[in-house]
């Protein structure tokens, strides 16, 4: 089992003929993702890695019904492409681009709510149900099947942590990248709720960072509604207040979003917080071994 996507999920790639689009189409196919079509306006009739390319999302889903779409579209055009996918009935939308304007992101989320669609990102590496389907840009080799669900705000740091798990022989059910922007489609609690319901997920690793209140909200949810153990790692302990640390959302403002407040909230909810990425596997094994 897995959450959001599985080996039957039929996937479109918007922006398939571009550099990133074609490279990651190849990588996703190699992982086993069922990519049924690509969309690049004006490039209809071409193919990438043997997958047919269409001019519009509507045309693509007429030919090949699809559940999900992943966008490799420059930020200024991402809103149009995202709204097109939602209008054509796509229910899982993965927004890879960084620098999508905030107002555009809010427009996309409003439409997705009306259509009951799930948006992952923007500014995300995507999501992967290990061994079944990858809709994203993460390196294939680290994502092997196992009992741990992972949800993260950042990309490379998530690879680092999943890499440590893999090294220690601990695989993953689904790994979800929420994205580093201020407005993103999924929050920790949405994904935690799914992991709680997923019978194969026995423990959850939460990778957070300073800024905002998502980790505090997650802590409240864990305390009230989760029976499965949660391990966390948080980045930004040494970050000075008022400075944006790379991600739009990673900033301590007006005394909110500090490392200490997040650790305190999570610890109080019974979450074990690792002080180094390398210490995550041992904490995970403590709660999964012998179960």
């Amino acid at each position: 089992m897995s959450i959001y996507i599985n080996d039957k999920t039929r996937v479109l790639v918007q922006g398939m003929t571009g550099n990133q689009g074609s490279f990651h189409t190849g990588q996703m196919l190699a992982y086993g993702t069922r990519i049924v079509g690509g969309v690049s306006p004006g490039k209809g009739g071409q193919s990438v890695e043997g997958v047919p390319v269409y001019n519009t999302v509507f045309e693509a889903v007429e030919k090949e019904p699809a559940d999900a779409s992943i966008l490799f579209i420059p930020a200024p055009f991402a809103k149009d492409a995202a709204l097109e996918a939602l209008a054509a009935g796509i229910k899982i939308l993965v927004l890879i681009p960084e620098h999508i304007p905030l107002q555009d992101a809010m427009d996309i989320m409003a439409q997705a709510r009306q259509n009951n669609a799930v948006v992952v990102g923007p500014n995300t590496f995507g999501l992967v149900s290990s061994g079944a389907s990858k809709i994203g840009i993460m390196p294939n080799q680290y994502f092997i099947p196992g009992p741990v669900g992972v949800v993260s705000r950042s990309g490379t740091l998530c690879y680092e942590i999943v890499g440590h798990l893999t090294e220690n022989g601990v695989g993953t059910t689904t790994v979800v990248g929420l994205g580093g922007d201020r407005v993103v489609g999924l929050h920790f609690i949405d994904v935690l709720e799914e992991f709680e319901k997923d019978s194969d997920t026995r423990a959850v690793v939460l990778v957070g960072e300073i800024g905002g209140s998502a980790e505090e909200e997650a802590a409240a949810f864990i305390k009230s509604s989760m029976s499965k153990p949660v391990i966390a790692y948080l980045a930004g302990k040494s970050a000075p207040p008022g400075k944006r640390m790379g991600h739009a959302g990673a900033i301590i403002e007006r005394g909110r979003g500090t490392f200490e407040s997040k650790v305190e909230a999570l610890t109080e909810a019974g979450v074990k917080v690792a002080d180094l990425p390398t210490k995550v596997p041992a904490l995970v094994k403590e709660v999964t071994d012998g179960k």
Partner: protein
Amino acid sequence: MKLYEYLGKDLFDRYDIPVPEGRVVENPEQAAEAASELGEVVVKSQVLTGKRGKAGGISFASSPEEARLAAEKIFNMELGGFTADKVLVEKKVQIEQELYLALTVDGTAQRPVVLVSLDGGMDVEDVPEDRMIRWPVDVTVGLQPFMVREICRKLGVEGNLQKEFIKLLPRLYKLFREMDAELAEINPLALTSQGLIAADAKVTIDDDALYRHPQLPRIKEKTALELKAEELDLAYVELEGDIAVMANGAGITMATLDMVQHYGGAPANFLDFGGGADVEKPSQALELLLGTNPRVLLINIFGGITRCDVVAEAFARVRESKGIDLPVSFRLVGTNESEGRTILEKAGIKSFTSMDEAVSHAVKLLDAS
């Protein structure tokens, strides 16, 4: 991008949000001239730092001579590391009550949110939660009069003031949406005998949407290095320590800094050079770091989109052209790892596979240097 108060007020004026009559001046003489036209005035430093008032960046003047002296003092004053190029001289407003009004983004609700309080003028974080009304707005519906009436009911506001709010709030919402603002804040919003007037303006425009607003001036209150990093599209923040850090990805860069601290060192900077397969970006990032004269260089690469060989190549190239004679700790794993390691070995650089080892090695190098 934060806008100076006078630019925020220009926007307010364009959206029919009342602001006090004022002049932007560039020297004390012009301030005196403005005061002779306006009468009793307030003289305000145009810098981006908050707490401007407490720091002495705002003074009142009841004659042109007083305005000249006040402006002179303000032009010579350093606030938050910056001195003002411009001063705003405004007609003094007779305030009956100070209110608070803002539009910002609620990340959890994924919506714009209206914030209103009858307790304005003070720091917003000092306003008790229950005295602040928050109303998230569905962008497909927009800010409607009924929402303002409901906000007013919660505030206990009726009559003329309610009418004023019903006029004002949709204008601020329109500005917020059309101008791609992240924050449009009026604090204080002054209640006067002529109605509501925006006595201050704090507007932040979304950097990612600046391309849609070519008419807005570009404001750069940053250090020279941060400006250069911005030109190169690198996420860079100066810190106090002496170990220069470069990594790919915001989260892992933060985690690297944390680990430097964990092992007893102090990072000199945050530098996330992002992803990509281009050799230019890491080269420029390296050159920028070397320009800061750090004592140790720590590079942490976990290659996904980023290719290890490209970063190693960039390092070898910069080392050859600029000469890197400071101690270096290099961590390299992921896409094209072995190719990258070969390049480094040829250059005589030992690299690590684990982040822990590379970071603790960097701290040891610092202690030895």
